[in-house]
């Protein structure tokens, strides 16, 4: 997941090289929408694993909120892309995120109790940091449609809240 920025950079580079025009190498709104919704779905999967495994009240409350918030964000995103007539398009960054998340799920799946709680929450801090950084440095600046850009900015505010919530929880679990 830490490689998301690198992957986006690689994708941008690839697109730039293949198109031969730097300005045409930016991510399309269809790709940006796909990356954003994939990031949300992956965090919902992680939260569902936490709800299956954790008995810690605070960790469960956090995970429940991740399911609720990311579901709400993705529902809004779906309605927006429909309105804008944009079909989210799979891409290298989405695939890389998905692959990294599957590895993390498998790794966390082998842990239990306090060790799981700590690893889950620490990963949530790292994951939200990575996604938020990608949003602010790459996805938002590259979004062409003003409504999509504004929606991503709201998403970033929500996810920064998650990052702070996770950091707070991580400090309590130490």
């Amino acid at each position, binding site marked *: 997941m830490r490689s998301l920025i690198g992957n986006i950079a690689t994708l941008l580079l690839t697109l730039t090289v293949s198109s031969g025009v730097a300005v045409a190498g930016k991510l399309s709104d269809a790709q940006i929408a796909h990356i954003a919704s994939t990031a949300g779905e992956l965090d919902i999967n992680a939260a569902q694993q936490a709800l299956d495994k954790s008995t810690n009240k605070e960790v469960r409350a956090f995970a429940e909120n991740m399911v609720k*918030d990311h579901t*709400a964000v993705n529902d809004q995103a779906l309605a927006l892309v429909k309105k804008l007539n944009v079909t989210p398009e799979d891409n290298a960054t989405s695939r890389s995120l998905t692959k990294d998340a599957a590895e993390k799920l498998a790794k966390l799946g082998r842990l239990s109790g306090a060790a799981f709680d700590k690893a889950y929450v620490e990963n949530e801090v790292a994951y939200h940091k990575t996604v938020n950084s990608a949003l602010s440095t790459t996805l938002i600046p590259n979004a062409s449609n003003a409504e999509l850009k504004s929606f991503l900015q709201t998403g970033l505010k*929500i996810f920064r809240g998650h990052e702070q919530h996770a950091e707070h929880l991580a400090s309590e679990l130490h």
Partner: protein
Amino acid sequence: MRVTINDLAFSPAEITVKIGDTIEWVNGDFVDHTATDKGGAWDLAIAAGKTARLPITTAGTFAYYCKFHPGMTGRIHVEAK
């Protein structure tokens, strides 16, 4: 006294009320929030698109935040009647 929530912010972020007043938070966002007193006196759930109310019974200054998005903060000054 009404506090609106839009785009992850309480507005106005700082208010002054009197004992006996009721504060209502109107959540214009599509995600749930809370108004949670940092001192533990109250913890109010404010569902997406809904309004939640808190009757004020104690004088003092209360700093509060949203448990789900802790960057959202506000302050309430409660004066005696």
